[in-house]
């Protein structure tokens, strides 16, 4: 079974190749079959691989070397696939959720003129993501890494005739590219420090050769972190993610749930050994995660566009994952990634169903009362929102978020302040998730919702709703009757923990705050909507609302600090100021020509005189020397 590993990335890539070459000549049904089918087959293949992995007699990581990519001297970069619990979970989620999104897209994109192109990009996206997570060497990981960046660029700008979409796409690519450059430099540091770029030998050598918090360890991990920050939309590179909503909704689901943004989390989890050797950087990771989750949580509260609100919620949830990674609880981060993939895909796809029904209306304030028109969409969206808000006991989000919060509190690398930020974030999460629910599905009907979504859209929604609620039961904390399927699969064993609060206490506190968020949402957006309206009408409220809505003004800041100088410099170079030197040479030559040209009088006698003078001079030289 494990030998099938290469088909997991190969199938979506094959689908991409077929669609790219022949997509325009295929009928829509054919495109759907190839597009969704290739990812479906890939999901099946990952399932088989997972089965093969679990039923191994001796559990061991499995690697499959495809070919040697680059070989120069001692540098040998292989195209090598590496399967271990981390990558197994990642490919299962990427292909599984990816498949559901593809199925959903067959209906969502039904009327689009560029149907084949859309599926080609989507297949490439999944393929690149699978390459990324299965990569056994960092350059190959970088290949997938940039591949998903490319696909996000293509898909965000899918409706290219609107210049804003294209601009958002470029922004996404460039912002993540900045992080990627850091990561690339990180690869160089690793290569010169450890002499290899294959991930497993890298870990082993690092443990042998690096001393904790040594300069090279800090530099290498900090540079890797740059890449992760860019891809996962963390501070200070989070600005691209809200704008990435310009793409079709299934794309948002794919980017936010199964593929792109998970890459950063995956990278940090994959290289957690290195980060363990650089506690200073880990601390930075945790602080960034905490700051991001608060900032994005507040921003999410001020959005009008349903997709932007969900986008900020993604940033916020990724903040949780980074918080977990920062305290070394990478399995908790992966667990939250998994549950988040389910409920966020669900939320986006349900939001897509709403948007489609509302004729591409995305402003939540123009929606309302849709729970009667679209009951099934409402119930599934509610399931997703509950999981996002981590309502206790019944949702998957609760278990994963609880695992993070408890590790933050109990880990020696964590601490009360980080935990407090996480808990405040939990309150905010409850508030903004149910704000969306209430604005969209409750209240009076404002727009005119049309046809209900068909089975191709609804079946993935229902499946994901089940997962969003039930996937958490693979890992249940001790206080609620210990189940540790996930962490034991990851090979992590709970360490002795000591904290200011007991585990049970902190669970109750976190749950209460999440419920508090829900309650606040009920009050503010369902029962007394006037309070918010009145507050926003005050000057300070309006200013704060504007600040939050703009994502704390990072766009303007970067526009001033980075974009403007670059544009100014480039307009300076536009007319090639260095060529002036050569132009000056030309001008000198022309001047000399003009001066000597005066001697060209056209008068024969003048020329004769010149000859005579020349004779005089030459003879004088002969005579005198």
């Amino acid at each position, binding site marked *: 079974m494990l030998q099938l590993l290469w088909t997991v990335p190969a199938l979506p890539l094959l689908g991409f190749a077929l669609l790219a070459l022949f997509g325009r000549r295929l009928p829509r049904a054919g495109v759907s079959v190839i597009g969704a089918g290739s990812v479906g087959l890939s999901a099946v293949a990952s399932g088989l691989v997972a089965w093969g992995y679990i039923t191994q007699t001796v559990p061991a990581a499995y690697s499959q070397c495809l070919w040697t990519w680059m070989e120069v001297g001692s540098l040998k970069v292989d195209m090598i696939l590496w399967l271990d619990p981390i990558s197994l979970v990642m490919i299962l989620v990427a292909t599984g959720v990816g498949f559901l999104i593809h199925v959903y897209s067959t209906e969502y994109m039904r009327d689009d003129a560029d149907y084949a192109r859309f599926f080609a990009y989507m297949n490439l996206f999944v393929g690149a993501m699978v390459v990324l997570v299965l990569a056994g060497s960092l350059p190959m990981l970088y290949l997938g890494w*940039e591949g998903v960046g490319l696909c996000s660029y293509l898909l965000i700008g899918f409706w290219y005739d609107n210049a804003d979409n294209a601009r958002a796409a470029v922004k996404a690519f460039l912002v993540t590219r900045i992080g990627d450059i850091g990561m690339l430099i990180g690869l160089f540091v690793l290569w010169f420090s450890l002499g290899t770029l294959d991930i497993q030998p890298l870990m082993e050598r690092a443990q042998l050769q690096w001393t904790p918090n040594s300069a090279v360890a800090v530099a290498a991990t900090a540079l890797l972190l740059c890449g992760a920050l860019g891809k996962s939309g963390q501070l200070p590179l989070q600005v691209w993610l809200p704008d990435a909503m310009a793409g079709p909704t299934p794309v948002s689901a794919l980017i936010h749930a199964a593929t792109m943004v998970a890459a950063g989390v995956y990278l940090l989890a994959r290289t957690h050994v290195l980060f363990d050797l650089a506690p200073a950087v880990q601390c930075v990771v945790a602080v960034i995660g905490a700051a991001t989750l608060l900032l994005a949580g507040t921003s999410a509260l001020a959005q009008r566009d349903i997709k932007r609100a969900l986008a900020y919620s993604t940033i916020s949830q990724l903040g949780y994952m980074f918080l977990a990674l920062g305290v070394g609880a990478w399995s908790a981060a992966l667990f939250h990634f998994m549950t988040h993939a389910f409920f966020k895909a669900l939320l986006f796809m349900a939001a897509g169903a709403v948007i489609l029904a509302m004729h591409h209306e995305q402003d939540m304030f123009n929606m309302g009362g849709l729970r009667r028109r679209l009951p099934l969409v409402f119930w599934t969206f509610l399931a997703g929102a509950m999981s996002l808000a981590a309502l206790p006991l019944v949702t998957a989000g609760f278990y994963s978020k609880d695992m993070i919060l408890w590790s933050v509190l109990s880990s020696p690398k964590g601490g009360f302040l980080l935990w407090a930020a996480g808990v405040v974030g939990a309150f905010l999460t409850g508030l903004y998730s149910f704000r969306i629910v209430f604005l969209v599905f409750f209240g009076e009907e404002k727009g005119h919702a049309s046809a209900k979504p068909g089975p191709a859209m609804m079946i993935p929604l229902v499946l994901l709703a089940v997962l969003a609620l039930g996937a958490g039961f693979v890992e249940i904390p001790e206080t609620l009757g210990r189940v540790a399927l996930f962490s034991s699969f990851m090979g992590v064993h709970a360490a002795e923990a000591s904290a200011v609060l007991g585990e049970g206490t902190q669970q109750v506190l976190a749950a209460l705050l999440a419920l508090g968020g829900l309650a606040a949402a009920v009050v503010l957006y369902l029962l007394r909507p006037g309070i918010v309206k009145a507050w926003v009408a005050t000057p300070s409220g309006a200013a704060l609302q504007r600040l939050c809505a703009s994502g704390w003004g990072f766009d303007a800041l970067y526009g001033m600090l980075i974009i403007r100088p670059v544009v100014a410099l*480039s307009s300076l170079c536009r007319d090639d100021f*260095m060529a002036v030197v050569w132009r000056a040479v030309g001008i000198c030559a022309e001047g000399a020509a003009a001066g000597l040209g005066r001697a060209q009088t056209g008068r024969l006698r003048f020329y004769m005189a010149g000859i005579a003078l020349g004779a005089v001079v030459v003879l004088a030289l002969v005579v005198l020397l």
Partner: protein
Amino acid sequence: MTLTAIILFPLLGGVLAWAAGWKSAASARRIALIAAALQCLLVAALALRLRLAPLAGTASPWLAELRMPWIPQIGASFHLAADGLSMAMLLLTAFLGLVAVLVSEGASGRNGGGLHLCLLSALAAVSGVFLAADLLLFFVFFEAMLVPVYFLIILWGDLREDRFAAALKFFLFTQASGLVMLVAMLVLSFLNARATGQLTLDALELRGVPLAGAVALLLPLGFFLAFAVKLPMVPLHSWQPVTYAAIPASGGIILSGVMAKVGAYGLLRFVLPLFPAASSQLAPWAMVLALAGILYGAFAAFAQTDLRRFIAYSSINHLGFVVLGIFSMNGLGQRGAFALMVAHGCSVAGLFVLAGVMERDGGSRDMARLGGLWAAAPRLGAFALLLIMATLGLPGLANFVGEFLVLLGTFQASPRIAVLAALSTGLSAAYALRFMQRIFFGPRRGAEPAADLSGRQAVAALLLVASLLLLGLFPGTMLQAVNGVLP
């Protein structure tokens, strides 16, 4: 004998095409196409044969060579020789020659036979450059490259540009720097004769001539100047944008794809082996210059609105990486530079194919007047997208292999420069995406060309795409080709 054939064959094809051009442009094109394709096969066959059976058991670094007396009075011989590096460059030359003939504007009414004669004789001259193992012979081919390009510009160039000024600028820059190189060659040969009593211009025998004082720096600088102009390196680049703007697209493929690489090839073939000590002394300065070129090209490319000038400045940006790799003075960087030469040859040729398609039937190349072209020409759009991704160094495409190795090698030599160069790839992403956005995305503006890739152009595009992908994913053969040549 095969080596001579490689040089003479395209010339013969060119003359035949020219002769046929008096009857009909179409037959001239056909003959030229056949000649270019056969040239490809010829070079490929030779490469295969050399790979299978290199010269048996000699100390010679050449895989194949041909030596005949030429001008014994000054020690010049007609010495052609091929090693892995030159075979790779020959393959690139023949391949891009085929692409150039595939997309040549032969049917546009201005004597198509002559155009093909120029294209193919340029190919012959470049092939000679890559094969010459004698300095004077190298110089002759080096200068011979100018002539066809000059005529390509003034006779078949873009009528909207000042073709004569462009051709003159191109000629003056390359000619003047070439003469400096000639002087350096002769001085080197003279010094060698004084030291050993043997008059020779052979590139191998001149290695290790004892040099001292100012000459030890001036001679390599003389060579360096000629190659830096050819590449071109900032600040010797000012001929390039005007030339790229004026030259017909097919000529541009040869000029940018292959001739610019002659500069880098010359650095690798002559400057480094002939002057090892001076090279390592000059390397830091050359790297700084290269970095300046990288940044300058990136910024300037970002601000261009003219398609051709964009290509020119992005080339300056990329060739900066090549120089950076060469002067990192280690195997990683130099191999990366070599890979990048090949990759950039393919990608820039693609950009010229793109430019040729856009300008066909008088289409505009002013990016400010273009937009939304994807809807009209999706195949062209996909082709451009791939080229743009290659330009910005997407892994999986050929340029990444080169850039990665160059940066790795540079990091070994000077981490600071490597970091700055790596940061500039962000800029190259910015200008590349801006290019894509301006031409293919956004609303339509009405200045777009009417048609998508035609049959021949599509074939050329497919060839380039395939080569970029293959070299990007399986660069092994390419990197092994230079194993004996570079450290």
